[in-house]
């Protein structure tokens, strides 16, 4: 055995799963993440299977049941617990007697679609603008940062109201909501991405890619995007639930989805005054919303943790390996680009 052999044998690292698989494995090992994922999948399945389940219950989302409500008392459902019965598993809607179970299911379709769609739009624009600002020259950066400022400063509800008035009513409402929330609310994402990009682009692997002959686009796509995944996913897990609540607020202001289409937000906003007369009517959408938000939050946290290699080695006493080298870089590091959740424009 030569000295060199003796020395290299240490270098053999234990066989570990590759990046994606490892993330998956780490996720699976967290029971809370699994439960959250199951809940979300279940919600999506329920939403997709709405027509089936409606047929199973034998109800339709829009049929009125005047006989199930007490017209003299403001249309409160006659049965107990908001009119829960064998025919109406979750009771009926005050004022109309429409079946709540089916409406909840169909509502999930709209709410989840709007929230997901809006989040995708927000992220797509936010990432594109943030990347461009972070990678572009001084002028482009300043320009895009100012545009982001304008977006952040635009009062969102006002724009929502104005836009729904301007856009012709034939335009599909869910899509409009997605666009309103998505197109107006990407400022936060873009700030995070810009800040991250600014700090990432200083890293040597970006320089190496440039030396290898990669242009800016290629660098953005191949080197930066993968590294942005973690912060972006974390942010998405905050955005998603807040988009559901935003949809509810827009409904409350009368710019939600078109009736008779139900959505959780629209249900919540019409349930506003009912919590004493018909608590069930309020509890249903609130409860479902809460569970959804909780699930997204838990899952988002878990994904972020799983994506973050530091989190995995959180318990290490000293990060000896990292600091074994000389790291004389701190003086140049501008921490404003680090750790900022929404990023600060500098």
């Amino acid at each position, binding site marked *: 055995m030569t000295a060199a052999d003796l020395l290299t044998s240490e270098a053999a690292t234990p066989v570990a799963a590759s990046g994606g698989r490892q993330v998956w494995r780490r996720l699976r090992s967290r029971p809370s993440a699994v439960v959250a994922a199951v809940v979300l999948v279940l919600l999506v399945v329920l939403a997709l299977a709405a027509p089936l389940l409606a047929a199973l219950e034998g109800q339709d989302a829009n049929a009125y049941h005047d006989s199930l409500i007490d017209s003299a008392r403001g249309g409160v459902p006659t049965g107990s617990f908001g009119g829960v019965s064998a025919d109406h598993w979750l009771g009926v809607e005050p004022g109309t007697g429409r079946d709540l179970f089916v409406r909840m299911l169909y509502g999930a379709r709209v709410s989840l679609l709007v929230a997901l769609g809006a989040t995708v739009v927000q992220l797509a624009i936010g990432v594109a603008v943030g990347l461009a600002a972070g990678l572009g020259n001084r002028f482009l950066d300043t320009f895009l940062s100012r545009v982001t400022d*304008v977006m952040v400063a635009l009062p969102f509800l006002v724009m929502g109201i104005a836009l729904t008035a301007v856009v012709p009513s034939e335009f599909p409402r869910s899509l409009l909501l997605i666009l309103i929330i998505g197109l107006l609310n990407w400022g936060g994402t873009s700030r995070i991405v810009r800040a991250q990009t600014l700090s990432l682009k200083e890293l040597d692997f970006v320089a190496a890619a440039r030396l290898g002959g990669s242009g800016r686009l290629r660098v953005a796509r191949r080197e930066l995007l993968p590294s942005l995944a973690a912060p972006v996913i974390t942010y998405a897990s905050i955005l998603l639930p807040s988009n559901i609540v935003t949809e509810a607020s827009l409904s409350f*202001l009368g710019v939600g989805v078109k009736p008779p289409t139900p959505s959780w937000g629209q249900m919540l906003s019409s349930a506003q005054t009912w919590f004493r007369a018909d608590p069930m009517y309020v509890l249903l959408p609130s409860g479902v919303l809460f569970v959804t938000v909780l699930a997204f939050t838990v899952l988002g946290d878990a994904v972020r943790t799983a994506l973050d290699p530091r989190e995995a080695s959180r318990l290490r006493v000293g990060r000896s390996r990292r600091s074994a080298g000389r790291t004389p870089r701190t003086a140049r590091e501008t921490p404003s680009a680090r750790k900022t959740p929404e990023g600060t424009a500098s």
Partner: protein
Amino acid sequence: MTRYLLKRLGGALLVLLVLSVVIYALFYVVPGDPARLACGERCSPQQVAQVREQLKLTDPVWLQYAHFIQGVFAGRDYSTGTATLHCDAPCLGFSYQTDQQVTQLIVQRLPATASLAFGAMVVWLVIGVGTGLLSALRRGGVTERVLTLFTLAGTSTPVFILGLLILMVVCAYLQWLPFPSYVPLTEDPEQWAWNMLLPWFTLGLFESAKYARLTRSSTLETLAEDHIRTFRAYGVGERTVVGKHALRGAVPPVIALNALDVGTVLGGAVLTESLFGIPGIGKTLIDAVKVIDLPVVVGVVLVIGAAVVLANVLADLLYAVADRRVVLQ
């Protein structure tokens, strides 16, 4: 530093200008006739024409906008019918509906919204940062879960439901507090505080989950840093380590988020304001939007925009103070 500030303020001015153009353009195409809305439902066409003339709505848009800009920088004259008055330089025009000066209107309404926003900010900082710290400390424990659920429940309930619930429980059911009704700070500070308590909590609770999450993760991040290990290795108690060293490191991102939120809250507190009858600019804005009272809309949007931009500049400054390593440029 001064140069930095000048640069940022210049940028802010530009942002506001763009903002006003966007709003002007958007509301110009919104259906509905401001003159008719100002005149009343059953005005005759001639009367509407008179009102339109009087509001100068017959001018082309660009000219209307030019007048607006002129008002901002040089002031404008206006007539009350019986007299001609002057509206001094930062003149944002007059409400189509009430003929009130927009600047005056905002000066009247801003304190209420500011009281709401800043009080709520204290609440969300205290609850959010407190919860975040506690859950970072008791990571994985029952306390953390309960706190997380609590703040998440706050976030996932829209303000209009959360506020109503709080009112029902605190004022109607338990009767711990009378129903709040806004009292200006200048009139009676004590009453002001009592009456703002519930609005603060409603809005604060709604926002606090975000802060809890942020504080928690950034505290955990700081706790994993090497210098924390140093103090532990020197026998410094855990409470000092977390309360002093970890918290200090967790503060800057909270500042950044806060700056963003102050702006959002100024413009987005509409629902809270109308629920609690707080005569603030959020509500004014929505009411103005409904009747296409363009000068009011633009004025309020500009003020909110200015607040957002200033909050961001302030946050950057604070950030630099909090973290001396940051160089402002």
